[in-house]
């Protein structure tokens, strides 16, 4: 039996800070914990975690567990799977929330096998039915064309990976007290059969897509690497970030790190400008929480117009230079 009093959040870091997704999960966990009277446990894996642990507490955790063995300093699917599974066996949480990030997507199914757990990937909402002691998870399916709701099974641990930007972080409580506990015990003998040969971080210039207030994005209709020059000019003028759909990435016009959508990043800017984007659901599902969307496309029937607030039917090559000049005048 799982313990209804325990909810686990698996933490992640980003540039030495607690990752945004982890704060979101802590906020979500708090809302789920209240009706159940559960404690929120945050598991932090990797070194240098004490300042992060404080950040975890003020972001909503009741207890922070730190696994700071140097063996965990770099993400490794096999060792992380082992650690999370063993930790769950001891804590016995009713719910384990993991970010639907690269690392999260890799470890969650493997942990689920080891724990015979329920598993929902890429959830955009998790609700609790306290009387039944179960959770209801909503996730997009069919590339975002439909939403599916799944129930957890009472008594069995439920593992959910949650999409970034779908849960609101909780309010900071600067004076929040809580326990910080080091996991010092042996890691055990897990197999690491896969050797990392090379890991290269690609530096992206400018603002991060996930944090950008304005995003100018290009799709297959941009047609070439050169075409993205105009996208970049507009993005720079608006102090925004550059994004793309899958086609420009697959064609090699822009790096993979710019991809937005189901297989890329999930964004929620105030203003999203879609240039030469047809509007496949797989892309739309990644921008659905944008406040205001502007579409520029040659084809008046393109699906992107159906999901936009403002549209212009035009060839971007002609429109963008003129739009940029007009905006320059208006912004000054």
């Amino acid at each position, binding site marked *: 039996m799982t313990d209804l009093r325990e909810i686990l959040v698996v933490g992640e870091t980003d540039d030495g800070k607690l990752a945004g997704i982890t704060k979101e999960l802590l906020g979500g966990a708090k809302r789920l914990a209240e009706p159940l009277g559960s404690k929120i446990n945050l598991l932090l894996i990797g070194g240098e975690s004490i300042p992060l642990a404080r950040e975890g507490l003020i972001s909503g955790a009741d207890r922070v567990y730190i696994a700071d063995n140097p063996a965990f300093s770099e993400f490794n699917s096999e060792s992380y799977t082992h650690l999370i599974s063993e930790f769950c066996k001891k804590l016995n949480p009713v719910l384990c929330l993991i970010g639907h990030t690269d690392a999260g*997507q890799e470890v969650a199914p493997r942990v689920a096998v080891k724990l015979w757990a329920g*598993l929902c990937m890429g959830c955009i909402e998790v609700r609790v039915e306290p009387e039944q002691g179960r959770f209801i998870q909503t996730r997009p399916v069919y590339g975002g064309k*439909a939403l*599916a709701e799944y129930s957890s099974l009472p008594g069995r641990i439920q593992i959910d990976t949650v999409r970034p930007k779908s849960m609101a972080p909780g309010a900071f409580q600067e004076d929040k007290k809580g326990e910080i506990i080091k996991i010092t015990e042996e890691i055990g003998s897990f197999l690491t059969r896969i050797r990392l040969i090379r890991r290269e971080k690609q530096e992206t210039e400018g603002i991060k897509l996930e944090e950008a207030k304005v995003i100018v994005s290009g799709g297959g209709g941009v047609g070439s690497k050169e075409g993205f020059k105009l996208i970049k000019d507009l993005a720079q003028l608006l102090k925004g970030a550059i994004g793309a759909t899958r086609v420009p990435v697959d064609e090699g016009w822009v790096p993979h790190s710019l991809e937005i959508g189901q297989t890329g990043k999930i964004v929620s800017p105030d203003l999203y400008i879609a240039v030469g984007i047809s509007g496949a659901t797989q892309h739309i599902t990644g921008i659905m929480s944008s406040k205001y969307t502007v579409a*520029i496309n040659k084809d008046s029937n393109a*699906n992107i117009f159906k999901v936009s607030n403002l549209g212009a039917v035009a060839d971007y090559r002609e429109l963008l230079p003129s739009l940029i000049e007009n905006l320059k005048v208006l912004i000054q």
Partner: protein
Amino acid sequence: MRIIVCVKQVIDPDLPPAKFRIDEQTNRVIPPEGMPPVINPYDALAIEAALRIKDKQDARIIVVTLGDKSSEDVIRRSLAMGADEGVIISDSTFGGLDGFGTADILSQVIKKIGDYNLILCGRQAADWDMGIVGSLIAEYLSVPVITRAKGLEVIDGKVRVERIIQDTIEVFETEFPVLVTVSSELGQPRIPSAWGIIDAARKEIPVWTTKDIEFDLGRVGIKAKRNPLLKLSLVSYERNCEFVTGENTAEVARKLATKIVETKLI
């Protein structure tokens, strides 16, 4: 070397949202008329990855699918692309498998085929989008797994896998056997040649049933589903689009700029 590739038949992911229908009574997707199901695009890339290895060295590619009679199409397509043999596992007797059940049965099938070096899967299926079956098969078979490959290379009996995650390029190496899931960064899958199609049409495709593999309905069947589906509903992202029009592009640009500034979001 022997490569096993797992493929799945799905509703064409390019189906326009307007034609996508669901039966809310049964929580099922209604197959669209006039648009035949296709091989899951990520699985076509897994076949492509296998073929790129076969282009360089001796390899036998065996394609496996769990499905019904119509799934023969995805096997024939894989054979036409250049795979050597195919197996269909009829899923009707299992009744409503989740990802865990699917992976459990596929791992039994892979065990029965045996003598494999490499197992390839697409990173996720374009229908339920869970992206877990590859990792689960690897767990059930106790083989290492590398997910979301951009490219694979076989060097001296080892496999080297490159992948791109977020802002990072990673290269891994491991010994056989290994399971690798393939992502869209691999590129485009090849188009079957006319000769390939003719050749594929001649091949026998065995259909295995519950008699041919070991399984435990308590582990994989409908009662073993870990997360019952309560509700399936259509989702609309529609907004009311205001079109900016004008005599010429210059006028459209001017009006569009004004409208964008009026939003006060910049």
